[in-house]
């Protein structure tokens, strides 16, 4: 059991990955109308109506302080299930599902651990560098 599957997505040309178990659904941004929510932090784009359920949409770029541009038409909403709650995160694109085994994962360096504690490990495959995220830390979900 030393191989895990990850969903890989891109933000600003960098690759990130999350545990596939947490992924609920992937949708196209244009299929939804995001309704703004008053008085919320900037990284909350708003909420959508997902077949009768209220799902908040997080602009992850704003949350982890990556340079933010206006939402592209090709953007995707990656809906994740954290502790039973559905949350949608805006990503540039979703590329694939990959398998990573223990040898392909390594720990981040000290500086990274301090500044970006939501990056739990770094995956290396075929010369690619993929940042594996801990969504609970990113989203501050308790």
């Amino acid at each position, binding site marked *: 059991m030393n191989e895990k599957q990850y969903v890989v997505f891109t933000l600003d040309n960098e690759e990130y990955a999350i545990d596939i178990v947490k992924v609920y659904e992937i949708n196209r941004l244009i299929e939804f109308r995001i309704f*703004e929510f*008053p*008085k919320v932090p900037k990284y909350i784009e708003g909420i959508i*109506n997902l077949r009768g359920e209220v799902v908040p949409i997080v602009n992850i770029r704003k949350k982890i302080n990556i340079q933010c541009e206006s939402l592209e038409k090709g953007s995707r909403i990656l809906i994740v299930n954290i502790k039973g709650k559905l*949350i949608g995160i805006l990503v540039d694109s979703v590329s694939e599902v990959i398998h990573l085994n223990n040898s392909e994962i390594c720990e981040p360096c000290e500086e990274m651990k301090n500044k970006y504690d939501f990056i739990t490990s770094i995956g290396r495959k075929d010369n690619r560098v993929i940042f594996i995220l801990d969504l609970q830390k990113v*989203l501050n979900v*308790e």
Partner: protein
Amino acid sequence: MDKQNFDEIYLNLFLEETKEQIQNMEEKFLMFEQGNHEQDIVNEIFRLAHSIKGSAAVMEYETMAQLSHNIENLLDKIRDKKIIADNEVMDVLFECIDLLKNMHATIKLGNIPNIDISHILSKINAIIFSAEREKKSKCDNTNHDVDDDKTLDQEELELTEEEKILCEDVEFDLYTYKIRIMLDENSQMKCIKGFMLIRNLSSICNIIKCDPPDFEKLSDNEFDGIINVIATSKENYESVNKKIHTISEIKDIYIKKVREKGKKDQQIENKRIIKNKKSVENSTHLKKDSTIRIDTIKIDKLLNLVGEFIVDKETLNQLALELKEKYKHEPLINKFLNLIPHLSYIGSELQEAVMSTRMLSLDNVFNRFPRMVRDLSKRCGKSLEFTIEGKETEVDKEIIEELVDPLTHIIRNAIDHGLEYPQERRVSGKCETGTLKLSGRHEGNNVVIEIEDDGRGIDSSKIRKKLLDKGFCTEDKINFLTEKDIIKYIFEPGFSTTDEVNDISGRGVGLDVVKSNIGQLNGIIDIQTKVGKGTKFIIKLPLTLAIVKALLVKEEDYTFAIPVSSIIETLRIKGEEINNSIHKINEVEMFKWRDELIPLIRMNNYFQTNSMQEQNKLFIVVVGYSEKKVALVVERLLNEREIVIKSMSDFIGKNKLFGNVEGISGISILGDGGFAYILDLVHII
């Protein structure tokens, strides 16, 4: 269905039934302890113990059955007044209840209850044994009230085994008597007297057995004048006695009521099928109302479906209005539109009906407190009278479950801290027994629960001192606080004015949890207290209905929903009126409404939207609850409709995804796919 399922079904049935029965038994014990010794109660307790024994035996829970059996024994003696239920006996009985609860919990977890009950059994046996020893030494033999006639030794007038079998089929609403009549040896015509006696008795009794059996064949020489009769009758002791006295020259009469007239089923050791069938019939008669148990999952599913139906119904309503405008002369359309009001009506009724299935009476929460109060007051050495009012008040099931902890905490506080020791009370001129009252009632769209005691009250000066000592507040800040504000500090985490910590209270983690629990139910908690007089905690909870009628208002691109129940009035003011009614003091705006000056809140400011405000025309919604009112300025009024509330508590709050968004308590999905944000008036006001 496979066997597994059957077992599960029976197990669940067993658990539910015995839970009720154990709870019932505890309540009846409490009533009994408080002096209510009515025969009904004792019989009911006996019946409950017997049921539990039977069910436990069927489910093969030996220890539980054995414990119940012993409880039955003890109860039997108490019922026959051979044992007096004093403190020691009551304590043993309550200990039995606790053991039963323990076993029930073990079974619920899927294990076999093999608790060691030898300890309690020996206690029970000790009680029974000492009572019997006392009795034997007394030579006491009465079991009836009339002391006119002499009575024989107990044993002689007891039913023999064969006589017992004869008496088994006696209907339960008759007394059974064993009678011995001794005619004067020297009287003439004893046989005829005997014959007449039996004939007279027959007029009010059913003679089951008679010795000698046949007087006509008897001669006076053979007859020793002693007649033994076993008879049943509706009549009481005195009438039977009188009837016998109609014959002259009777030397002695001994009558013993060997079986009481029972309103419910009597328990006899011999288990015969007929008797058991009777007991089953009787117990089903006793179920007062017809109920069925439903899985809450089924109800929630119903509720969801009803919710979706309501959304569609609302959309239909809207469409109907538009269609009516467009096609008012089309007969087919009109026919179609005529259906809509009725559909609407069904929707509302359906919604109300399903909501009410989720309503349970407060008794479900209140019923656990009498026992707790009893134990706690004993432990603390305080004497108090506990009353409960309004337990029939109905409240949503979710609320019931959440109320247990906060109420438990407040009641414990009241007994531990609030009420004084008896001597202290005497010294201050109060009655030694304190009072503690738990009450519930409906008030508007809320449920109000109060816990009131007549104890020490809360001393604000003590709190003031504690605040300074513990560094909660600085000296100068304190002077600005009113007494009410100071007292509200007891809800702060880490705050407690007791110096010692015991397992009941004093750790300072209680009341803040209570406040947040109540807050999670969208309720508020308030205190009224007076030093030396007592304290009252008041909890107000909205009757959380997942579906409410709301007024939709528009502000910029946002649609907000205001629950109609909180709306007092909607107004439109223009031109001059605006200047006349809105006044500014410092930075705070006030609105003149009727004869009051109430705070004015502009929605666009509160929610930081960018909408432009028309200067000549304003829409105002006056909202409020109890005495607090606020005027809300909105951009536009939309319409009124029923909305389904979806809570946002998962995301709204400190440390949650959205942070603390004040002013919005939930969201509703509108028929057109959009959202309406439901105003949280408690925070706005």
